[in-house]
């Protein structure tokens, strides 16, 4: 470290040094406090902005499925439903794939191959959300409408109970397509977290299992996964948090209709997509704008809870 050897040494007076120290410590702490203030300000500003709407509609705002700018009646029911359904569906698709990728990257892939493949998967997370929207709209939507949805209707549409989920006009847009795009977007986050926590398993544990003759999969199932269970769930929650608030990609492919449908092919909306779409047509100070801010507040509360749980589970285990 030749940099250190040339440290310019100017014997300052002890008082000046103490003042410099206090000033720097103060600046550092102020910056830290600023982060807390920022979070507080986000919550408070969204709540205040949404207050006229909360006051006008009360608690039923959460479940009311109307969104009627003409009558000035607004409810969060449909967007909240759409947000939860697409996020959970996205998890169902993403978790097995992300687990497979993480398993491959930690135990199966040859050593020299892990870094380039890992980087490529991480790059998938770096692609901007709007690009996923365009790709989804121009590439995935036609595939869904022409092949996947008619196929699913043929195969599953007549089943009792769940058949209704797979019926309806195959437009290509809708809840299922939105969930699919969301899944692609959160796979890299979940996979990267899982890979990192799988790598924290002490080698001696795995070696002992291999030593008594376990196969790679048995080591994974009986040693690695139990050891990292909390962090794996944390990684999944991190992905859920991302999926809940994703905006641009969903706006392109979900169909943007304020209606609850029983079919997964049906159009819908999410909190983020309705805010992005309706915002430009809202007057400042109107009840509609206030309702959008109220939706933002609800989304913030949901994602804060999910992300907080995720962080608690992902805390490094104390030695």
């Amino acid at each position, binding site marked *: 470290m030749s940099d250190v050897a040339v440290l310019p040494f100017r014997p300052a007076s002890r008082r000046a040094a103490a003042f410099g120290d206090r000033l720097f410590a103060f600046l550092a702490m102020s910056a830290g406090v600023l982060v807390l203030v920022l979070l507080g300000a986000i919550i408070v500003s969204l709540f205040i902005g949404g207050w006229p709407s909360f006051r006008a509609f009360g608690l039923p705002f959460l479940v009311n499925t109307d969104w009627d700018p003409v009558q000035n009646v607004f409810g969060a029911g449909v967007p909240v439903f759409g947000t939860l359904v697409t996020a959970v569906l996205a998890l169902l698709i993403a978790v097995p794939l992300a687990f497979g990728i993480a398993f491959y990257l930690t135990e199966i892939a040859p050593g020299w191959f892990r870094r380039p493949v890992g980087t490529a998967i991480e790059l998938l997370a770096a692609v901007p959300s709007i690009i996923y929207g365009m790709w989804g709209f121009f590439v995935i939507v036609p595939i869904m409408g022409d092949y996947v949805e008619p196929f699913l209707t043929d195969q599953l549409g007549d089943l009792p109970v769940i058949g209704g989920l797979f019926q309806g006009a195959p437009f290509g847009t809708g809840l299922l397509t939105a969930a699919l795009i969301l899944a692609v977007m959160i796979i890299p986050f979940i996979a990267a977290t899982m890979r990192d926590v799988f790598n924290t398993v002490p080698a001696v544990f795995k070696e002992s299992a291999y030593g008594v003759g376990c196969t790679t999969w048995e080591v994974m199932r009986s040693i690695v996964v139990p050891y990292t269970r909390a962090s794996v769930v944390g990684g999944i929650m991190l992905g859920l948090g991302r999926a809940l608030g994703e905006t641009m990609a969903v706006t392109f492919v979900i169909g943007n209709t304020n209606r609850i449908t029983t079919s997964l092919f049906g159009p819908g909306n999410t909190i983020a997509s309705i805010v992005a779409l309706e915002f430009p047509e809202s007057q400042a100070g109107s009840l509609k704008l206030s309702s959008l801010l109220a939706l*933002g507040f609800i989304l913030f509360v949901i994602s804060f809870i999910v992300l907080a749980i995720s962080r608690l589970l992902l805390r490094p285990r104390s030695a």
Partner: protein
Amino acid sequence: MSAAALSLTGPARDARVAGLLSRRRKLVDGLVKLLCIAATAMGLALLASILFTLLFRGVSALGLHVFTDITRPPGSNGGLLNAIVGSLVQTMVGAAIGTPIGLMVGTYLSEYARTSALGNAVRFVSDVLLSAPSILIGLFVYTILVEPFGGFSGIAGCVALAVIVVPIVVRTTEDMLRLIPTELREAAVAVGAPKWRVIVLICYRAALDGIATGVLLAVARVAGETAPLLFTSLGNLNWSLSMTQPMSSLPVTIYQYAGSAFDDWVDLAWAGALLITFGVLALNIVARVVLRPRA
């Protein structure tokens, strides 16, 4: 000694059953491995599909006019100059505001408050903000900078992006500073350097590569952000660099153009998408490949 005497469990004593079991276990193992390889191949195929689509649709739309003309009404051969410049300005200013704050927070967490309650709270909140939906940051900045001041503005867009930059820089700065050995700090303190000079002259220098990586990743992240800008800088179809006026940006322009019914606008959207994606991916690769090994 026979094999059976060494075996601890019962069923494996029968050689035929043992053979079947072993074959079954190997089969399951192979099947799972195959599925994992398939999952990884699918992930890579998705990335390839996105990049290929962008190249296929974007390159044909890319031309000199994209960089030299500003956005124009459909059918009049416009470009994206104001959007590109607007994006560069907002990304740079946003990073310039967010980086020093994030650097100080990271310093606070690593050098002053590793275990204090306040430090833990700041670390927790910063990590939550790292993954908070960016659309909410846009709404937040709308309520504090757009609504009270009577209009959308470039500076509001910059502030929204800065809020997104801060937690990213915090995370990498803290991680990098924590990697610096205590002995290095002790050596500097021993020759009489005050703590703040130790941090600035020793720790920052030693962690420079890592901190720069964080800043690059933050820039890459905000360069593609669309949702927060919809409510802050709004977008502007005319040439404007005024910070108090609505400002154009590449992602918002792509959003407006891609959903339009005009073929030339959709083509321009693909050209813009190509530019932004390869810019962002290039920044990521530079940050990872060039800087990381030395960090």
